[in-house]
């Protein structure tokens, strides 16, 4: 009966209740949409880094990541690659020779990370092949073709078929150089990556550096379902053995993981700020409710409604008021966010700034159901907190005095 009374009490002053319900709904809608937007943005960034730069899992010889020593390679990379390919859920595997080097054009030079890849294998792991904006992915050049980033091409003033020289240290610690021609120019949304990464064929780099055939510094693994990452990682570790370092994307690029965690934290802070602003509106409404009903509350006390029940009635009213607005906001926010999962928000007007940081100009929202549960709980908490002072005021009423009010 208390629930029923509280619910009906809300609608005694429809306009006032609707104003507060709409305020809460608007606030929560904004919160849900902003959460989905920023989560989508962060997830897109992470997915992009996984797809174009690092893949889900990488294997190195233990210690290579610290030293980048060319001699710290995986000797049996080719066999390992085959074994990993047989693991359920693995969508693609690619082995790479990875060397810090200098790329020089006729005009200038730049430090780059050169990756010797098997172009077909690499397609199954990263999406560089889909990011070609000029030329073709290892096509059109027979000898020593290279795929370089747009930013590097601009820096070194290179065009398709332009020749440039790569200088590296070979396996015997000798400095050696090779001439490559630009077959394709790629552009990801990360200018820093585009400026620093050059892709050449595995065989060309292997010959240039006297690298043992079948060996590699890095094995990159792509998976078909990211939910299976922990299980596949375990299986890969088992196949790779103790001497190899197997790391997932979160370990390879910890800042990406921090990005998700920081984004979640910011979102909670954002929602809490919205709710704090709404809190005062709800307190104000509940104070008006209590003051208008002083006589009625006095009567309830007189006929035997105890303080706990009166307190509960006021808290319930406040929670119902907040929750009604909250649910409306969550539903509209969820529908809008769901729509945004297939219809991206166009930020192309500010694309240059975003792309500099590696973010997409088109953001697909990402609705997190667990966040909706948290928001619902926070709205309930707001309702409870908003009711405490008004309920305290109500309980301080003396029934005899309250009943004298005309």
């Amino acid at each position, binding site marked *: 009966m208390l629930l029923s009374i509280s619910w*009906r009490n809300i609608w005694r002053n429809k306009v006032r209740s609707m104003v507060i319900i709409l305020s809460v709904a608007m606030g929560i809608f904004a919160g849900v949409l902003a959460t989905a937007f920023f989560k989508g943005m962060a997830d897109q960034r992470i997915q992009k880094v996984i797809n174009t730069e690092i893949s889900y899992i990488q294997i190195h010889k233990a210690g290579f990541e610290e030293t980048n020593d060319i001699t710290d390679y995986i000797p049996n990379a080719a066999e390992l690659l085959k074994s990993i390919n047989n693991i359920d859920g693995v969508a693609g595997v690619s082995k790479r020779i990875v060397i810090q080097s200098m790329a020089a054009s006729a005009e200038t030079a730049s430090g780059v990370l050169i990756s010797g890849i098997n172009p077909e294998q690499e397609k199954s792991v990263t999406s560089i092949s889909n990011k070609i904006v000029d030329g073709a992915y290892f096509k059109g050049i027979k000898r020593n073709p290279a795929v370089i980033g747009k930013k590097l091409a601009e820096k070194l003033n290179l065009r398709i078929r332009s020749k440039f020289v790569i200088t590296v240290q070979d396996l015997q610690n000798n400095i050696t150089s090779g001439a490559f021609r630009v077959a394709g120019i790629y552009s990801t949304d990360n200018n820093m990556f585009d400026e620093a990464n050059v892709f050449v064929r595995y065989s060309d780099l292997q010959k240039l550096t006297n690298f043992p055939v079948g060996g590699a510094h890095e094995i990159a693994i792509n998976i078909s379902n990211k939910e299976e990452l922990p299980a596949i990682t375990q299986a890969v570790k088992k196949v790779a053995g103790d001497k190899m370092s197997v790391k997932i994307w979160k370990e390879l690029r910890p800042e990406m993981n921090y990005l998700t965690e920081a984004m979640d934290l910011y979102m909670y802070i954002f929602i809490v700020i919205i709710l704090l602003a709404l809190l005062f509106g709800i307190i104000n409404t509940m104070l008006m409710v209590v003051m208008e009903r002083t006589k009625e509350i006095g*009567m309830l006390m007189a*006929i035997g409604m105890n303080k706990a029940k009166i307190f509960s009635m006021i808290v319930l009213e406040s929670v119902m008021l907040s929750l009604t607005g909250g649910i409306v906001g969550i539903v509209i926010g969820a529908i809008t966010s769901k729509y945004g999962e297939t219809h991206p928000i166009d930020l192309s007007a500010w694309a240059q700034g975003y792309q500099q940081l590696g973010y997409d100009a088109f953001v697909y929202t990402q609705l997190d159901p667990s966040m909706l549960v948290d928001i619902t709980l926070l709205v309930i908490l707001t309702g409870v907190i908003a009711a405490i002072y008004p309920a305290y005021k109500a309980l301080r009423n003396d029934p*005899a005095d309250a009943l004298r009010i005309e």
Partner: protein
Amino acid sequence: MNVIEIKGLTKIYKTSEVIVKAVNGIDINFEEGEFTAIVGPSGSGKTTFLNMLGGLDKPTSGKVIISGIDVWKLSSRQLIDFRMNNIGFVFQSYNLIPVLTAGENVEFIMHLQGKPKKEREKRTKDLLEAVGIGNRINARPSKLSGGQQQRVAVARALASKPEFILADEPTANLDSKATNSLLELMSQMNKKYNTTFIFATHDQRVMDKAHRIVTIEDGKILSDEYFERD
């Protein structure tokens, strides 16, 4: 048998400038089944007396003993429960819960008492029929006339099966037809359930029905008379 024993009941209001003795050492007893009117001019202390009797207003001194319990020695929590189970209230301005129907208003107090749903529903129906508005069980107070609302208030006061009912100016807002009808009803309820009714009033029609009239002036009992009625 005395239902209520009052000894030396006093209420003093103090402000920075004056001290007002609203009720000044009243000693009086009420027996089971009485139909009593407390009368007196405005400001004579009727309502204050009734509020102290009903456990709403704490006396400055004196005792209110109801069925052997010294009411003002109870804790505030015990007092609320005591009021719920022993005292029925009928107020001048009806004071029904506007968002509840007539039936729900009557049922509400039994809900507070923790009575089972079936019992609540049956008693609500019986009481509303007894007060003559069984057909308005689903009407909200705003859809009822003043007289009908006061009948609901009487049914609500009776719902908890109290020892006695305190009615503060119950007819003040009613026209004469509704007043007569309500008084007739309360008189019937008094006879039917042997419930003690104590009114604070200055309505002659109420006094004409009362079996006992206690006149208060300046916080003291001026007279205490008994009458034979039909």
